[in-house]
């Protein structure tokens, strides 16, 4: 069944129950997002906290990746409140991302750059110091380079790896130490990774990249 909703004054039609994020993106309305995946409709991770929007009738901003569209919904993707919240979330992510666009394989095709542009945000954090974590680059796999200091912990590579029929990478540890890694923290090259490259396709930033030939 189709429903009609209004996003930023524009009327759009979407299948009832679709998450608002996908309805917006399918209609050319950009909402920042890192962790959501279309195939994961059951329980979206809702962990990057960048897809906030304001919806009439809701007291506070809500994440668009978790909100099924409903008839008559009125959405504002960049109210003052949303903009400030998204800016804060983005600055937090950027305070934990090794910024090196010039040498990054994802340069020009990076979701962080895209968000910064769409929302007029700085890539380099303004108020917050950069939180360094000394995590070495892993280039042990045949075809893949993994740089954990660029990882934004969206989990997309984990799903891609699982969908490919492998489960080489997963989340480990807690809090600030949370990391995408292999079972037992072995290098990718010893993990059974077959260098299929699905994780590289899934990675919205430059944390997973193909080796330069």
């Amino acid at each position, binding site marked *: 069944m189709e429903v009609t909703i209004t996003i930023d004054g524009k009327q759009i039609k979407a299948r009832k129950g679709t998450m608002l994020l996908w309805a917006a993106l399918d209609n050319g309305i950009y909402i920042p997002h890192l962790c959501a995946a279309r195939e994961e409709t059951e329980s979206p991770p809702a962990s990057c906290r960048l897809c906030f929007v304001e919806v009439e009738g809701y007291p506070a*901003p809500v994440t668009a990746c978790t909100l099924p569209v409903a008839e008559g919904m009125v959405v504002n993707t960049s109210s003052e409140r949303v903009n*400030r919240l998204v800016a804060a979330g983005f600055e*937090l992510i950027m305070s934990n991302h090794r910024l090196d666009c010039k040498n990054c394989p994802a340069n020009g095709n990076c979701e962080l750059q895209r968000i910064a542009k769409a929302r007029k945000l700085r890539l380099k954090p303004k108020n917050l110091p950069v939180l360094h974590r000394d995590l070495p680059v892993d280039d042990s796999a045949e075809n893949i380079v993994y740089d954990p200091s660029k990882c934004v912990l969206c989990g997309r590579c984990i799903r891609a790896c699982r969908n490919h029929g492998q489960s080489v990478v997963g989340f480990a540890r807690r809090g600030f130490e949370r990391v995408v890694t292999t079972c037992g923290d072995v290098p990718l090259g010893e993990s059974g990774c077959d260098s299929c490259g699905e994780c590289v396709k899934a990675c919205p930033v430059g944390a997973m990249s193909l080796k330069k030939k």
Partner: protein
Amino acid sequence: MSKGSSTAKAAYAKLQEAARQNWEKLREKPLILVGAATCGRAAGALQLMEEIRNEVQRLGLDVNLLEVGCMGHCYAEPVMVIYNEGFPPICYGYVSEGVGARIVRDFLVDGDPGIEFALAALEPNEMLPTFTDFPRGMHEKKIVMEHCGLIDPQNIEHYIATGGYASLVKALDMAPEEIINVIKSSGLRGRGGAGFPTGIKWETCYNAPGSEKFVICNADEGDPGAFMDRTILESNPHLVVEGLIIAARAVGAIKGYIYVRAEYPLAVQRIALALQQAREAGLLGQSILGTNFNIDIELFQGSGAFVCGEETALIASMEGKPGIPRHRPPFPAVSGLWSKPTVINNVKTLSYIPHIINKGADWFKSIGSEKSPGTAIFALAGKVVNTGLAEVPMGTTLRELIYEVGSGIANGKKFKAVQIGGPSGGCLPEEAMDTPIDFDSLTKAGAMMGSGGLVVLDEDDCMVEIARYFLDFTQKESCGKCTFCRLGTKHMLDILEIITKGKGRLEDIDLLVELATKIKEGSLCGLGKTAPNPVLSTIRYFREEYEAHINEGRCPSLMCKDLIAYYILPDKCERSCDACVGSCPVEAIYSNEDRIKVIDQEKCVKCDSCMVACPPQYKAVVKLSPPHLVAEREKGKE
């Protein structure tokens, strides 16, 4: 159902008859109860049991000696109660080694009740005041804790003899909607922290489609300093079991679980035994009390991460997944364990259920305040005289709770703040002491009810350090899934550490507030949404302490190590006494030409030993902040 219900009534009457007989038999001889919950054991309750057992044997006395749970007077432990014919039952406190044997001997052989050791009598009498004659007892209103410490938690007959499981019989005769309506109109709100109306939660689960539903008791109790749930489970486990069975009956659950942290071995043991006894008595399992109602309850041991107390993380961990919260909705009442409708309630919430079914919604509403009916159970800790558990009606003020129930501030110090609601609660100052305790008032004041941890802070506690301490806890316990909590709390903690070292900037206070506000707004689960509370509330009420650290490098409470220095007052030093010199682990103290002791600031590690060692009649060692005051004083001396 009526046929089933008459069978149930008959079956219960038989159980109760037998239980009452054995209960009354207990009193045919002198009865001695020793409070041996985890708190009592830590104070030596098991040794006291042993001592009394030996003394009774030595004297050839015929008594009943029982291990019971905790009445809440943890400050006075070990605690013991003696029922002796011709006397009111007397509760003794501070029963240290040798005292227990002596009381038993004097009382049971010579008829001298040893009132110098008595805390109070348990029943009105001519001889001794009762607990209700003291300010604490006047404020206390025991519902959940009524029988804690007075019945044997390992004997289901004690629970039944005091009216236990009668509410289950009543509930078996009620339609699920009827039970839900009673709970709804009682206004009961969840005691796990958020204060969500229990009846509405049950109704949602009841109305959710599906024939497989679950009920879960949340006994994860991860707040540092909180031990209400543990005490209830150790002192009266059947109360919780009965509440959970009634919940299952109301929502139509096919299975119940008690999720308890494995770090509570005694509680685990007591629940396991309670479940077994309830099954044997026909109160749990297939065709309960002969009716067609079936429910079994399983014990599930969690391995203790704080965030596993959050309901979606708890459910994930029961499913064998990492204990990480997920987005709600769907709420567990609609999609919980194995994606089936699931009611999850706190231990205390469930403990009210049998009482409400028994005495009715109006009775419950008559206690406490309008929007938060019933009682609140607090674990009093910190710089308060009477630490322990207290159950008071909602609406009691913080002042009454701290000064009358808790008997005020220990060691003649001055009150500074009360940290209420656990690590995600807030610190309230003197001005907020007349705040009534209920869900909404505390939240408005910048704290929260939380699970009931309450830490009293005095003039020696630095509010910046307190905020740092609690944030350090939540930051370490963050699961790391969502951006705001994972990175936001880390930044906040870093800033607080810098401030406690005297290296902060004034803008840092605003940055903290900004980060805190965004973390509350943007986090995925309750942990992140509340973690900034200690910081926000201390900035709100004690901003000048932050400013002193930043502007003057001074810790007003002399607590932050980097901002203090130890100094020996020359005119107070006794000269010939070398106590401080001997106590110093790094040989930082020397005698000057006048034999006055001086601390070499370069060597001093600020361990506090000299301050402790200096005899109280001199009190020559003091702390100064900022540390450069030492040099100024030493110069002034020259």
